[in-house]
């Protein structure tokens, strides 16, 4: 009874602090209010902006169809919150339940949600990264700067890394008529996320749209002129390339440094949490007052062998934020697991790419509808005899069906034959993912396998 009373008090007059005022932070705050939380709500965000949406930044904004500083997320309703924007959280005292801010202020909480996301991995050579013309793309300020530079008609744009963001940037440049070179260390674009078979289709798309795509190539150095402006890049095959803009798209780093020494299980791979979004501490014990959601979280998923998934996906941030918020103000019997089936979309070279499940777990892939050659198809991934993921290029309508196949652990290869009976749909082929032990350009899904049965939680400390 007294436990219920404490929960009622928390819901009525507790203090909830959310660190990270972006997609996950905003959606969690809305859910808290919708579920009847009437206590104090504080949102802490290091960017000086209201929560805004990132996916348009590499698409509409770079194409000039939308403005980078008008991408604020719509609100479902008022929040009655205390916004601390433009100031970073700098430390966490879990025993005292206190967040320390960079300006020295301290904020106490009864429940804390960490939604600090990720940031773009910078070009590794700091002096080269400083050159005028070298960009990354994560924030709306990044997008505004890059879009301005693209509008000034650079002679050539070099995109370093052909993951989803890099490929979308290359696509936008081509649509603006700009000469683009894409340098990708792997065998094809999107290879870390979708594997080599589908990656080949992405490569064809790029080349058909006039991208100078160079795979199996690393950029070894960026060179500027005497005024500090980017002039050329040096490539691992010994050649050089003249370019006045380079966009570094080498994946992302998790924003967990501020938690160093806090005792929370937070490191470069994110913050591990249970399926109910409660963070683990360094001892592998789950906390009851610190929750995690969005790109910064790693959480076990029952559908995928309880593996810890880090998903840098918009839909994951929305769904996990809602679950975390619900669980923050619920008794243990009312808590829900984050059981969202991973899904994302990308728009590039006029093609709508969508996926459900976890393609990077796939051992084999089979084309069940359409054709790779036509760049319009549905591919289904199999793992240990079951359907684990599906990807579509301009065939969205099929994905819902495969989502249900994934949820019901349907057998792979699928028993039904390909609907339109193309030859490539007759048998599965190896999905051709790169060796996970080799570094790649940041796949959008990373998986590490700690099953609940072997009960090992490895703590990866933050880098010094």
């Amino acid at each position: 009874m007294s436990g219920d009373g404490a929960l009622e008090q928390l819901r009525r007059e507790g203090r909830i602090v959310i660190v990270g005022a972006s997609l996950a932070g905003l959606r969690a705050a809305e859910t808290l209010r919708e579920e009847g939380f009437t206590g104090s709500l504080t949102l802490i965000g290091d960017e000086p902006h209201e929560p805004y949406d990132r996916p348009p930044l590499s698409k509409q904004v770079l194409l000039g169809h939308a403005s980078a500083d008008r991408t604020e997320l719509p609100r479902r309703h008022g929040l009655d919150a205390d916004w601390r924007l433009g100031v970073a959280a700098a430390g966490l005292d879990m025993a005292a339940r206190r967040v320390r801010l960079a300006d020295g202020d301290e904020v106490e909480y009864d429940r804390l949600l960490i939604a600090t996301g990720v940031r773009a991995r910078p070009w590794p050579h700091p002096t080269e990264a400083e050159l005028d013309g070298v960009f990354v793309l994560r924030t709306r300020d990044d997008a505004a700067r890059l879009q301005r530079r693209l509008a000034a008609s650079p002679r050539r744009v070099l995109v370093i890394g052909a993951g989803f963001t890099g490929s979308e940037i290359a696509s936008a440049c081509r649509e603006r008529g700009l000469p683009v070179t894409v340098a990708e260390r792997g065998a094809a674009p999107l290879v870390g996320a979708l594997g080599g078979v589908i990656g080949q289709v992405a490569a064809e798309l790029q080349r058909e749209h006039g991208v100078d795509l160079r795979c199996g190539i690393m950029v070894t150095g960026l060179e500027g002129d005497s005024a500090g402006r980017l002039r050329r890049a040096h490539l691992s095959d010994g050649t050089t390339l003249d370019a006045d803009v380079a966009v570094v798209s080498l994946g992302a780093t998790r924003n967990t440094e501020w938690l160093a020494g806090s005792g929370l299980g937070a490191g470069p791979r994110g913050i591990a949490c249970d399926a109910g979004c409660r963070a683990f501490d360094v001892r592998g014990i789950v906390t009851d007052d610190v929750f995690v959601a969005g790109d910064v979280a790693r959480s076990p998923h029952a559908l995928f062998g309880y593996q810890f998934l880090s998903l840098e996906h918009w839909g994951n941030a929305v769904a996990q934020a809602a679950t975390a918020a619900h669980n923050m103000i619920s008794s243990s019997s009312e808590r829900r697991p984050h059981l969202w089936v991973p899904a994302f979309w990308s728009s590039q070279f006029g093609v709508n790419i969508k996926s459900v499940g976890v393609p990077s777990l796939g051992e084999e892939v089979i084309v069940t509808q359409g054709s790779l050659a036509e760049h319009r198809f549905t591919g289904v991934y199999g793992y240990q005899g079951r359907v684990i993921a599906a990807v579509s290029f301009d065939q969205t309508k099929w994905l819902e069906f495969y989502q249900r196949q994934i949820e019901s652990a349907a057998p792979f290869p699928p028993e039904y034959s390909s609907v339109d009976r193309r030859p490539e749909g007759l048998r599965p082929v190896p999905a051709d993912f790169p060796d996970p032990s080799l570094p790649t350009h940041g796949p959008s899904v990373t998986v590490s396998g700690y099953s609940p049965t072997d009960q090992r939680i490895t703590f990866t400390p933050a880098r010094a």
Partner: protein
Amino acid sequence: MRLVVDLNRCQGYAQCAFLAPDVFAMHGEESLLYNPHAEAAQREQVLRAATACPVRAILVEDPDDAPDRVEEEGLSGVR
């Protein structure tokens, strides 16, 4: 007015592009590109598009029904 489309949910049916062509546009076969900031003059069209979307993928913040904005709430910490 602010809007966002859940593109995981969007099926590319293009009703929105038909009803509010200045805000929503198809790009290629089934990609939807939209302006996350629609002008006030577009309000009626945008609201109609959001209602017409068969999978309810469009979330609009109606300025006439505006929730408290950051400026109106206890904002601190900005400059």
